[in-house]
């Protein structure tokens, strides 16, 4: 799955640690999501979308199978 998390975080001038704190996850989980090594669960994806006030599908999109 591809995502725009790094881009959105950059727009808000947040560090990975800042975003991790806002989402109550570890900084390394944010890093794993941004690098595409880990796909977040639906509840976490909703929390991310709510934080950036966007739809889930505008942040996450399915990758090539």
């Amino acid at each position, binding site marked *: 799955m591809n995502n725009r998390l790094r881009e959105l975080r950059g727009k808000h001038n947040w560090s990975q*640690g800042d975003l991790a704190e806002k989402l*109550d*996850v*570890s*900084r*390394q*989980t944010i*890093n*794993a999501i941004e*690098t595409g*090594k*880990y796909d*977040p*669960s639906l509840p*976490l994806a909703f929390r991310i979308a709510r934080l950036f006030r966007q739809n889930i599908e505008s942040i996450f999109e399915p990758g090539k199978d």
Partner: protein
Amino acid sequence: MTRIKYKSFQRNFLLAMLAYLVVVLLVWPLARTVPSLPLKVLCALAPIVPLAVAMGLMARRILHSDELEQRTHLVGLGVASGVVALFSTVGGFLASAKLLSLDACANLLLWLFPVLMVSYGVARLWVARRYGIAAGCDDEDETFPTYQRLLGAAGLLGICTAWGYYKSIDSFHLGLLSGTCAGLAVSGALLGLLHWRRRRGSHE
């Protein structure tokens, strides 16, 4: 759910393990010498208390960790359960075929928990690396790098070995303690060397 800081978990876990070491060295041997049966049972089971505290701390940490951390814990525990099942089944078959003495069976049972913890740690490390994260899943991991933990454990075991030598424990257990201590020290030294080379490489 508020996440638990890795540093505080590590400190409490280390304290529980130290208590375990003290109880095993000082209280558990009394089970062979005290005359009353209830006291014998209490002394023999005393090491379970710090172990239960350590397991409670681990359970609390897993419950309070985020979803990626929980995934790594789950895979680690799954692999560890498989390894322990295999290890105990091998022991069971050997004991049923009367190839193991009662003492050897008791020793085998005592090793189940260490085997569980080691295989859990190794499996978790492997899974964490696949996600590009440290096993602690926390930046505070750098406070105590793995090589320092291994060297610390080797130091503690070294003290136990010296204590065992002073108390003239049997050669099998003395060999086991000193072998494990040496293994940990060598692993710690090798990881420390790699850590030092990596840091030197990043500074150049």
